[in-house]
C-alpha cells in the first residue's frame, strides 16, 4: 500500500497533464475530423504567455491567475486564425490538414526561437503553490494538485458548455451529423469557428499549467503532441468522457510501468497496450454511432 499510493498519485497527475493537452484536441478533432498538429505549439504559446505575463505583472503570486485566462485567449485567437486561413479551405482532406498544421507548427516553433531565444525560460512558481500537502504520510506537491484542479475545472466547464448551452447543442449536433445540422438551420461555419476557438484556448490553458512542472522552450509542444493524440485515439472521437478515461488510464499505466521498468521501456509498453486495445475497440473507448461504414 505504501508503494501503491505514490504511483497512483503520479499516474493521476500525469493523466491530468495528458488530459489538459488532449482535451482541446479531442474537441476540434471530434468536431471537424481535423488533426491539428499545431495544437502542441498552441500549448507552447500558452506557456510563453505565462512567462510574459510574469515579466509584466512582476509578482509570481498574481501572474499565474492572470496568465490562465490570457493563455486561453492567446491559444484561442491562434486557433481562430488557423481555422480561418487554412483549415476551412481543406475541409474534405483531413490527412492533408495534418501536414499543413505540421507546417504551421514548424513556423511557430521557429518564431518562438527567434523571439524568446533557443534556450528554455523559466516561470517561477507562486509562493502559494510551493511545498507539498501531506496526506496520510504522502507528500503531494501543490503544483501537481493545482494542475489536477485545473484539469478538473476545464473538463467540468467544457461539459457544462456542451450540455447546457445552445452553443453546446449546436456543437454536438454538428459532431453527430454535420449535414443534418446544417439542414436544421445551424451554421456549421460559425460552430466550427467557435469550437476551434475553445479547443485551441484549452491548449493555451494547458500551456500555462505545464510551466509549473518544468521550463518552457520552443520544443515544448512537440513533447506533448504525440501523447495527446494517443489519448484522443484511445478515448474515441467526439467524447469528452472517453478522453478523460483514456488520459487517466494512460497516465496510470505509464506510472506503473515506469515503477517496474524504466521510463523508456514504459513508453513502449504503453504503446503496445494501445495497439492491443485497438484490436478490441478500433474506434476507441466510446463511439459515436453513425451509419457510415467502418
Amino acid at each position, binding site marked *: 500500500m505504501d508503494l501503491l499510493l505514490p504511483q497512483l498519485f503520479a499516474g493521476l497527475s500525469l493523466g491530468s497533464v495528458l488530459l489538459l493537452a488532449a482535451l482541446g484536441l479531442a474537441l476540434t478533432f471530434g468536431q471537424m475530423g481535423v488533426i491539428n498538429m499545431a495544437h502542441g505549439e498552441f500549448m507552447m504559446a500558452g506557456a510563453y504567455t505565462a512567462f510574459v505575463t510574469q515579466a509584466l505583472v512582476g509578482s509570481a503570486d498574481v501572474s499565474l491567475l492572470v496568465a490562465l485566462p490570457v493563455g486561453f485567449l492567446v491559444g484561442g485567437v491562434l486557433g481562430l486564425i488557423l481555422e480561418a486561413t487554412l483549415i476551412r479551405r481543406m475541409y474534405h482532406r483531413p490527412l492533408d490538414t*495534418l501536414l499543413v498544421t505540421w*507546417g504551421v507548427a514548424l*513556423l511557430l516553433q521557429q518564431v518562438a526561437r527567434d523571439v524568446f531565444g533557443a534556450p528554455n525560460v523559466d516561470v517561477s512558481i507562486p509562493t502559494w503553490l510551493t511545498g507539498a500537502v501531506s496526506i496520510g504520510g504522502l507528500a503531494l506537491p501543490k503544483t501537481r494538485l493545482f494542475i489536477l484542479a485545473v484539469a478538473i475545472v476545464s473538463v467540468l466547464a467544457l461539459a457544462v458548455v456542451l450540455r447546457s448551452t445552445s452553443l453546446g447543442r449546436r456543437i454536438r449536433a454538428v459532431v453527430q451529423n454535420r449535414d443534418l445540422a446544417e439542414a436544421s438551420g445551424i451554421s456549421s461555419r460559425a460552430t466550427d469557428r467557435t469550437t476551434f476557438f475553445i479547443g485551441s484556448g484549452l491548449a493555451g490553458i494547458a500551456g500555462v499549467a505545464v510551466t509549473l512542472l518544468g521550463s518552457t522552450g520552443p520544443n515544448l509542444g512537440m513533447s506533448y503532441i504525440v501523447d495527446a493524440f494517443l489519448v484522443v485515439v484511445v478515448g474515441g472521437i467526439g467524447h469528452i468522457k472517453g478522453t478523460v478515461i483514456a488520459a487517466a488510464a494512460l497516465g496510470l499505466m505509464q506510472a506503473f510501468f515506469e515503477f517496474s521498468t524504466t521510463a523508456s521501456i514504459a513508453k513502449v509498453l504503453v504503446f503496445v497496450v494501445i495497439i492491443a486495445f485497438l484490436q478490441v475497440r478500433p474506434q476507441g473507448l466510446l463511439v459515436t454511432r453513425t451509419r457510415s461504414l467502418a
Partner: protein
Amino acid sequence: MIRILTTGRTAPLVLLAFAAILLFAVAPIALSPFRLSLLARFLCVAMVAVGIGLAWGRGGLLTLGQGLYFGLGAYVMAMHLKLADAGPAGVPDFMTLYGTGQVPWWWEPMRSPVMTLVLIVLVPATLAAALGWAIFTRRVRGAYFAILSQALAAAFAILLIGQQQTTGGTNGLNGFRAFFGYDLTDPVNQRMLFIIAAGVLLVMVVIARQLMVSRFGELLVAVRDAEDRVRFLGYDPAAVKTVVYILAAVMAAVGGALLVPIVGIISPTDVGVVPSIGFLIGVAIGGRATLLGPVLGSIAVSWAETSVAEQFPSAWTYFQGALFLGVIAFLPDGLASIVRRRRAAASSGDDGAPAPATEPEPDARPEGRTS
C-alpha cells in the same frame, strides 16, 4: 518525355535509363568526393521517399513514422560495422565506456555480414507485417493510422535514448572505420558506396513502377479511393495495405542501412518524429502519386536543406514550414500536377489558345539537377 512525372507506361523507362547514365557515368567524374557523398546521402533519403510514394500516394496510407524503419535498418547496419571494427569476439568501444562491457545477445547476429544483410530486410519487414496486420484488419485507418505510426517512431527514439549501454543513447553509433572490409576513409570506396546507393535506388524505382502498372497497383489505388467497394468485390483491403506497408518499410530500412557507412553516424535524432515527417515533404512536393515525383522531390528538398541550412539555419525551418503549408494546401498533387495540367491543356486545346504541337518540353525536373 513530358509524361515522366506522371505514370505513363514507356516514358519513365527512357528517363530511368537517362538517370542511370547520369548517376553512374557523369556524377562520379563530375563531382568532388565531398559532393558525391552528399548526393549519395540524398539518394538514401530518396529510397525512403519511393516507399512513401507507394504507401501514401498510391495506397493512401499516410505513414508519419518511416523514421522507425529507417532507423531499424540503420541501427542493424551500424551494429554490424561496430562489431566488425571491434574484431572477432571484441566489444565495441562505447560499451566498455558506458558500463557492462558485454555484447548483448541481440547484437550477436550482426557479427555475420550475411546475417546483417538479411536482418536489414527481415527486421523491418516482420515488424511492419505484424503491425500492419494488427492495425489494418481492425480497419484502423486514416488519421488513426497516421497517429499510431507517428507514436511508434516516437517510442522507438525514446527507447534508443533510454538504452544507452546497448544503443549508444543520444550519441547514437558512430566512428566506423570499415564497410565489409573496405576502408571507409578511402575516396575510392566512398565512390563505390555512391554507385551502390544509385543502383539500389534505381532498382527500387523499377520495382515501384512494375507495381504501379500491375494488377496489385490498381488494387492499391482502388483501396485508397473506395476501400469498401474493394471489400464488397471480395478482395481483402487489409492484405493489400499490409503488403504495401511492408514494402515501404523495407525501402526505408535499406535507405537507412546505406546511409550509415556514407554519413558515418546514426542517432535517435535521425529516427524520431521530426525526421519521420520530414521524409514526407519531398514526396509531397514532387507529387505523391507519381513514380519519379517522390525521388526528385526528396532529392531537391535535401539539396535545398543543405545549401540553405548551412548558412541560415533559422531560415530553413521557416522555409520548410512554408513548403509544407503551401504545397499541401494549394498544390496537393505536387509539382507533377503542373506538368500534367499543362499537358492536358495542350492536348485538349479547348483553352482558346491551342498549344503549339511542338511545345518546348516543360522543365519537368528542374529540381533533379542537384550536382
